[in-house]
């Protein structure tokens, strides 16, 4: 038979449970669940890149390259040099990504279609073609990239982003971290461009390389 004591105990247990449920439902974390899929705020609709934030196109990016960059940002291997303005803006975005978040983001990015990017840089394409010859050894004759060499595709990327990264490599604002071996290769290779005209010309040549 259930006596008073049992009822009191039962009631207390039930009250405690409902208090716990109420508290959980009202916890801030549940009112505003945390979601790592905030990339499009800066990187544009469907990851097509956004000049307003200088955040590059992600749609169509190789998943192995995206993974490496997110991990580099997370570890502070990229985006911590004081002159890398855009990198510094990106770095904290990656800092709290778990490995499973990175995997999820990569699959989300993979769902976006590549859409041709707008051309904003106009330089001398034939001079650029000459300069590109040595880039081709890693990035491919058509800018298609080479996973075995760790070189991403360049064709179809926002030209203003390519130009900024080339400048960053030349100055050592990107790629000088001791753990960034691919970046260090790039800082050497980029020296051949020498100046802003070189950057403009090679980027305008890359603009002519079609993704189709």
């Amino acid at each position, binding site marked *: 038979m259930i006596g008073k004591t049992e009822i009191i105990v039962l009631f207390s247990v039930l009250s405690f449970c409902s208090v716990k449920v109420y508290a959980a439902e009202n916890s*801030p974390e549940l*009112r*505003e669940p*945390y979601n790592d899929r*905030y990339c*499009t*705020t*800066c*990187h*544009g*609709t*469907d990851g*097509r*890149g*956004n*000049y*307003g*934030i200088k*955040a590059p196109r992600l749609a169509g990016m190789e998943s192995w390259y995206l993974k490496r960059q997110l991990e580099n940002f997370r570890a502070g291997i990229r985006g911590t040099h004081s002159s890398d303005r855009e990198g*510094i*803006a990106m770095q*904290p*975005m*990656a*800092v*709290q990504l778990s490995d499973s978040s990175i995997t999820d983001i990569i699959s989300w990015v993979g769902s976006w279609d590549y859409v041709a990017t707008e051309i904003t840089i106009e330089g001398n394409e034939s001079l650029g073609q000459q300069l590109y010859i040595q880039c081709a050894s890693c990035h491919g004759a058509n800018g298609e990239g080479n996973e075995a060499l760790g070189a991403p595709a360049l064709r179809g990327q926002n030209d203003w982003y390519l130009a900024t990264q080339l400048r960053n490599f030349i100055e050592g604002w990107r790629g000088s971290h001791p753990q960034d071996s691919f970046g260090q290769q790039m800082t050497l290779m980029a020296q051949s461009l020498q100046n802003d005209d070189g950057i403009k010309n090679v980027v305008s040549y890359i603009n002519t390389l079609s993704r189709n």
Partner: protein
Amino acid sequence: MSRLVTRRELINLLGATGGTAAVLQAGSVLGLLPATASAAALDLLALGSTNKKVAILGGGISGLTVAYELNKRGYDCTVLEASHRCGGRIFTVRHGDLIDEIGNRQYCEFDDEPHLYFNAGAARIPTSHRSLLAYCKELGVELEVFIGENNNAFLQDDALASGKPLRMNDYKTNMRGFLSEMLAKSMSEQQMDEPFTETEAENLLSVIRSFGDLSEGDLYQGSSRNGYASGGYLIHGVQKDMLAFRDLLQSSMGRIALSAYEGEYGPCLLQPVGGMDKIIAGFLRKIEGQVKYRAMVAGIQVRDDGVEIAYDQGGARHKLQADYCFNCIPTHLAVGLDHNFPSDYIKAMKYVRRGEAYKAAFQAKERFWEKEGIYGGITRMNNSSREIWYPPHGIHKDKGVVLAAYDFGGGSYFTKMIQQERVETHLQDGEKIHSNYRDRVEKPITIAWHRMNHMLGCAARWRQSFSGWTHEEEQMYNILQAPAGGRHYVIGDQMSMNSAWMESAILSAHWAMQDLDVRVRSEIAK
């Protein structure tokens, strides 16, 4: 090393370069005070049986103003807000609130009390902002006084008085005294060359003398304006010692001390009782059910016969068809959407730069500033935290919320730091003003506006040069203000020449609605 100049040489220098105006820095960041107009009465056509759909992108105050006003005239309005809250940079943080800085999410732990809030963005209303004040009245938002200038607050600079904080009135009274002494001397010596009548010269001299509280012989010998050292009620007051002029000159903070409370930052300022977001709540009460939250705009297609908005909500992409669109999404985010804007419109959107601003706040376990004679107001420091604001409300209650840092324009200094480093910097800076600051404050929050999700900036910057707008900038401004395709309006404080004020956002919405009204009237007339 530059050689020292005598006062006489300095005055001659001033005379040669055209007077005291030459001494003041060109391009004061405060700029000119915009003309105070009475609140604009919107003259918009009520639609009657005509049906017009309006899409409003962003739940900032300009968007809510449009929703509210067009709603009244029978337009069918929908507001799409990307985040979980409306208001944008009108953000009041309270117990349990989320601060959605990407990469540094915080939850506010202030006690759950009505007076313990922090206005993390918009924080003061100049009384010249008549349109905003008209809405406060119309929406029943209760207002109280906000205190900016407080002569008992502090001024601190490591280069001044060995880093000891000075009361504002000590600094100001003494600085004005010496300035006036110089002016008075220059007046009497140069009277012969100046085109003043005797009466004018006498009046000017008397202004100078009373400005600086000069003594006999036009000398500054201290003043009682910054209070007595002792006495003054029942026994004779003992005047405080003067501060030495050359000591005052070691710091450049004088520029701030004597100009910080002019223009839109000067008395009289107001704030809503209970938090700035009461204004947003006032608008929202009138447009119940017309706001979609967590609805992030993905595309804007302007067509001859309307506008199509694509947006993501609940994991799916939706379409919203409308006749017109009012867009207060920051242009640096809007430019990355799937749009079909004309190229000169896009160029203008790309030209507008996003600003950086940073604030931080603590809950104070006791209102220690009131024990030091400070009620409301702002202490200014020559360090990275720059300002401490004391709440004008909740006087003599147990606790209060203080603003611990405010960097308008250079906030990236703090965003490079992790949360603990930011807080530690503010504690060290505050300790220079109030001993035991560290022990008396708790529950820090930091707001880095250029990192806040869905905003990524504060506030929009048009002109590149302090000295004014270029012709090209004005052209871009006009292009962006006019509706793309006659249907898409950019609004918000970004669509103004005086960004970072709610009044500008509201006036941009009014401009756009008046323009819309002309188009709608002519459509209906056909």
